[in-house]
């Protein structure tokens, strides 16, 4: 019983904390987003979840960053509203590498909001006719940042609030792998010593795993709708996941194609082991061979290194455990239903 209670508590915690904890303050966009070297740039910064009017305006600091060593500090910082900040930059005459154009990052350090960063915020183009200005790239390095500790999720451009889906989409796949793994264990058990219980448990866990697969695909499509622009973009990860679910759908068709239940159970157990070993290439090897938008594919960082900070871990891990326990619970109920049906059939 204790684990059912644990599952409910963990899931309630994951849903409440996952949906209610705010995002860190971030920078949504800047205008203008391009400039020439040597010019004076008046920029408006549009923040997200920010409270720019709190604290002392003199303590706010802004940089346009070229790389970890070189940056230009902003001057004449004025707070227009809680989410809008006006700032001026005197841009140096040439780019540090002497190139034609480059992207600069924007860093805002605020006494109460902390540090926020917009990668590739400003496109800067070299103006060959520019008269030399006094500004240079290294006169005001990025240092003495305001570090603010609070309980909030990281702000990421493009995904914004949908970062909360991490607590629901990713645990589905952990739960799916767990359910299919348990199912395979019961299938192996059935092959070594055939008895109805192992077979019914294998079926119950496969059904629950398939349910998590469908939910994982749905939450993934919802996420893709916001982050990739389309719910279904024939991304290799989406395709291979759909195929993996087809492999398991075939399991049920195979079971149903035999007149003798014993034969069906045995061959389904064999196929289950086969299907599980095809799951790894489908979900984790093939998607890495092709271009994909999904994290963990070619060119994309694997999940965990950048996208998961310590605050998120506090919700993410409990959510995984909660969903796995919920899955075991569902599979248990499903197994009992199969058992009762079996007993009822035997009595007829």
């Amino acid at each position, binding site marked *: 019983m204790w684990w059912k209670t644990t599952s409910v508590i963990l899931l309630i915690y994951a849903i409440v904390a996952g949906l209610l904890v705010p995002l860190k303050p971030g920078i949504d966009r800047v205008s203008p987003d391009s400039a020439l070297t040597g010019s004076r740039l008046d920029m408006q910064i549009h923040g997200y979840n920010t409270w720019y009017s709190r604290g002392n305006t003199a303590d706010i600091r802004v940089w346009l960053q070229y790389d970890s060593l070189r940056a230009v500090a902003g001057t004449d910082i004025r707070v227009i509203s809680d989410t809008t900040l006006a700032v001026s930059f005197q841009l140096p005459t040439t780019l540090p590498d002497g190139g034609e154009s480059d992207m600069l990052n924007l860093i805002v350090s605020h006494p109460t909001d902390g540090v926020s960063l917009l990668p590739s915020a400003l496109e800067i183009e070299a103006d060959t006719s520019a008269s030399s200005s006094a500004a240079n790239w290294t006169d005001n390095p990025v240092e003495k940042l305001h570090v603010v500790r609070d309980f909030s999720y990281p702000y990421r451009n493009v995904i914004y609030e949908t970062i909360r889906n991490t607590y629901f989409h990713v645990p589905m796949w952990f739960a799916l792998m767990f359910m299919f793994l348990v199912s395979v264990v019961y299938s192996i058990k059935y*092959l070594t010593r055939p008895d109805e219980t192992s077979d019914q448990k294998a079926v119950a866990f496969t059904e629950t795993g398939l349910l998590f697969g469908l939910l994982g695909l749905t939450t993934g499509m919802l996420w893709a709708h916001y982050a990739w622009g389309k719910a279904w973009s024939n991304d290799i990860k989406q395709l*291979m996941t759909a*195929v*993996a679910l*087809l*492999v398991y759908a*075939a399991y049920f*068709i*195979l079971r149903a*194609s*035999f*007149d003798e239940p014993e*034969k069906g159970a*045995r*061959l389904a*157990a*064999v*196929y289950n*082991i*086969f*299907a599980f*070993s*095809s799951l790894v*290439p*489908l979900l984790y*090897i*093939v998607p890495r*061979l*092709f271009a994909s938008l999904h994290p963990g594919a070619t060119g994309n960082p694997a999940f965990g290194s950048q996208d998961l900070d310590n605050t998120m871990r506090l919700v993410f891990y409990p959510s995984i455990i909660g969903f796995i326990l919920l899955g075991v619970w569902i599979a248990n109920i499903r197994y009992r239903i199969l058992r009762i049906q079996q007993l009822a059939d035997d009595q007829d």
Partner: protein
Amino acid sequence: MNTNFANQFLTLLRKEFVIEFRQRYAISGIVLYVISMVFVVYASSIKVGPKEWNVFFWLIVLFAGINAVVKSFVQESGTRQLYYYQLVDPSILISAKIVYNTILLMALTSLAYGSYSVVAGNPVKDPGLFLLVLFLASLGFSIAFTFLSSIAAKASNSATLMAILSFPVILPVLLTLLRLSSVSLRLIQDTAYRKDIINLVAIDVILVALAFVLFPFIWRD
């Protein structure tokens, strides 16, 4: 014991060839199947560019492969299967079938390649790599389809079941093959294609291991 195993294996392999030779309609059927599919592809598309050539070729090979392998367990009656069961070790039986089907599929893919080149041209720029891909395809299809046909043969609706079971499972293999074949047609530039070959061989090794471990359980009736 070792020579005994080798003897059993060779006898079974020869048996497969003899059966095939005696029932010539089956192999002729598959050959005709390949040739008619090549013509259907050619007739339905006015001009076959290298990209389409690649896709159509692998579709022909996939369908021909499934149809060629599906009969390997269906064609022999239950009583004869029982007879084999008493005589030989199941792993020898499945390995003989896999080797035989690999040879059959290699012949079929070469035939498909030849006839397809005649009607639709031959855009292959790296024949060595392409032939290696054909061999890996025959091997991978043979292992997966032989194993799955042994499951499907036990059911009444074996043809449908064969398609349902094999298409999703073979897809990673097929996608990797398509990619390697695109490299040999110079459709994509990929200097790291050796990694794909290793992946393919790794999948084959896993499939063979599974077939060896699991086949005795399918066999036992």
